């Protein structure tokens, strides 16, 4: 055994498989970036970097919520509808008051409440997360249409536009700042708190978590509440960017969020994920979109590439899991 380990090539003091497991996906990102730097002069500009980050900010915030849900053994398909609901709520809120904070707080509360409903249905009645959120997706989308009566309204609030388009000090977009703040909070929650440990334990082995005195109901439910909060934040950025209360937006956003998590090493079996990994997943998706745009490859191919990448990431995850067993 020991001899075999010594024979293997060591990289930074780790044997190759451990190294690849930990940093493999980071290397993929670096290779992509290196390739793009050579292939496209525009890619290298500061303006383009900002543009990539701005592009991924909504998806990034969603992925930072989704990573909790998937790690706790669930999935949330309702976030696309929740984005639309947020947009409609913001529009409604501006009809009564000009306060940006009121609109934001209202969105967060409503999305957190729907997250709670999702989570409670799943954790209390042991229903499949896939089925529950597939259904609540319709409910939430419908409610969005009902509130605004199906109409799209342009927002008149100029200050609100700044969230999506404005820049701090003229060079750092607020949306990127928001993404970074959410990432820091997510990192602290998942890696430094009891809640995070419980997320890992519940997703890793629910029975063992129960038998260790973990309140599994609350852990699972709160993972969906956090997802809801992240969705509201993402919804605020998105609404500000399109500058309209629109009930039909957000379709397909769950796919990108799930893809970012999985590419970043989140295991669908539950119990395995890191926030830095998820951030890399987010960045990879951003580079794919941006890079292929710069290389003038049609958006249809972007979709195909993203799908293939997810399959590759899942296979890698299964391969690692197989080794464990």
């Amino acid at each position, binding site marked *: 055994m020991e001899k075999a380990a010594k024979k293997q090539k060591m990289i930074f003091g780790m044997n190759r498989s451990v190294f690849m497991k930990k940093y493999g996906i980071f290397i993929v990102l670096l290779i992509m970036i290196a390739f793009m730097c050579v292939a496209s002069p525009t890619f290298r500009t500061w303006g383009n970097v900002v543009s990539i980050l701005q592009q991924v900010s909504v998806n990034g915030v969603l992925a930072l919520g989704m990573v909790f849900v998937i790690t706790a053994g669930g999935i949330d398909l309702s976030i696309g509808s929740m984005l639309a609901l947020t947009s409609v709520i913001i529009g409604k809120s501006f009809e009564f008051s000009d306060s940006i904070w009121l609109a934001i707080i209202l969105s967060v509360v409503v999305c957190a409440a729907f997250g709670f409903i999702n989570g409670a249905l799943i954790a209390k009645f042991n229903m499949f997360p896939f089925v529950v959120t597939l259904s609540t997706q319709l409910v939430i989308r419908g409610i969005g249409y009902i509130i605004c009566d199906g109409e799209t309204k342009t927002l008149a609030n100029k200050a609100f536009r700044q969230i999506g388009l404005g820049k701090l000090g003229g060079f750092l977009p607020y949306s990127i700042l928001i993404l970074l703040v959410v990432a820091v909070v997510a990192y*602290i929650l998942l890696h*430094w*708190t*009891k809640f995070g*440990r*419980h997320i*890992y*334990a519940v997703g*890793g*082995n629910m*029975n*063992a*978590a*129960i*038998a*260790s*005195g*973990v*309140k599994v109901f609350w852990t699972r439910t709160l993972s969906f509440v956090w997802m809801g909060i992240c969705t509201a934040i993402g919804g605020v950025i998105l609404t500000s960017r399109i500058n309209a209360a629109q009930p039909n937006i957000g379709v397909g956003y769950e796919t990108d969020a799930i893809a970012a998590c999985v590419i970043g090493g989140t*295991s669908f*079996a539950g*119990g*395995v994920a890191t926030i830095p990994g998820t951030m890399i997943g987010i960045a990879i998706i951003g580079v794919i979109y941006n890079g292929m745009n710069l290389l003038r490859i049609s958006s249809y191919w972007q979709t195909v590439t993203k799908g293939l990448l997810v399959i590759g990431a899942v296979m890698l995850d299964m391969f690692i*899991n197989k080794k*464990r*067993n």
Partner: protein
Amino acid sequence: MAGEHYILECKGISKAFGGTQALKNVELHLKAGEVHALLGENGAGKSTLMKCIIGLYKPDEGSITFDGKPYSARGPADAINKGISMIHQELNPEPHLSIAESIFLNREDTRGPFLNKKLTNQKTEEILKEFDFREAPTTLMEDLTLAQAQMVEIIRAVSCNARVIIMDEPTSSLDSEETEHLFRTIRDLKKKGVAIIYISHRMEEIFEICDAVSVFRDGTYVGSRSMEGVTREELISMMVGRKVDSIFPKVDCKIGDVLFKVEGLTGKGFSDISFEVHAGEILGLSGLVGSGRSETMRAIFGLDPLESGRMWLEGKEIHIKDPYEAVKLGIAMVNEDRKNYGLCLNRSIRENISLPNLPKKQKGFLLNQRREKQEVEEVSKQLTVKAASIEDEAYSLSGGNQQKVVLSKWIMANPKVLILDEPTRGVDVGAKSEIHTLMCKFAAQGMAIIMISSELPEVMGMSDRLLVYHEGKTNGEISREEILNGEATQEVVLAKEFGEK
């Protein structure tokens, strides 16, 4: 006995799993038309041998002869084709199939490419009549009682021309009337020349229905007897005598006041259980698998519901509805099922150990990770967990080290009552004795320990007091004095496990 005709003969069967020798040179001789009992303690090797016969395991050594010809099965389906069927203790019939579909599964009548349901139902009706079974062939399996479902399995076996039927604890969930019906069927089968291997822990039944018995112990074959002329005492003395392969490091320590007490606990699999444990005491629970020991402990810990009964901790009455409350009160349980209830295998040793202890490591909202690391290092050193680092994932550890991780997490919780369900199962000899030493150390610190073990020498060697379970109830208590002065031998304990007063 040479020269007699046997329908099934196993000779010199050995089977090892990893380092554990499950069967050592075992034999079994079965005559046609005979009901042959297999008797032995938990883990004596009965089921392993049966699995070798139906082709789930491949024996490492030895030969099986069936009907005079060499026999080997590639799996249960192949065994059925060759004429050997097994009725499992836990039936899992396809609930949505009808009786007819279930009996003719994989042998469906067809007309062209389509199923011929009419013919199948007709054939089933005839067979059912033969067995005096009053249900329509179209009745769904899920609407049958357990006894009826079992009967369908037997009918299926017979309709496949089974010449040997293996029954694993067939009466464990039947009432007396259903048992009587089963026995009538068994006698009919005997007349048809079908041989039956009958695995049961119920002595009365073995004496009632069986013609011969083979006794196993520790994976070895002890001997066979004809049921005529053999006594219960003889059978029990054949079963015990498991070698004591280690000397138990039990240290007598000061036994304090009553710490934990239960009265009249009733739930699924056990009823009217009462006992008390003192501080510093190790209370052993012995009994056969399924006798209700683990079930009682799971219910106390809040993993399963209690139907009735009361519990007191340090004189105060307590109510526990989930493990969260049990842990908060200071009750910890090391589960017998380490993979499912013990560890998150894909998480690190550190996270596993601190999982129930996180509230104590919080600094405001955040975890104090430096302190966590320090304390985990300390406890894993104290319990001699062997790993390169506490950041190693739990799946990479050996069974013994995994068990020490489970123990560590509960020791860190500093419980008042520590429940250990099979704490040394699947653990190598060295780690086993280390775990025993640790148990004594914890008891000396004033913990009350409840220990379940299926290994008689272990539970007798480690306990201050021994509570014997039989079919969901307690059947007597044995003190350490009685064990030490030789009054309570393994025979006495085993007899109690088998229901003798």
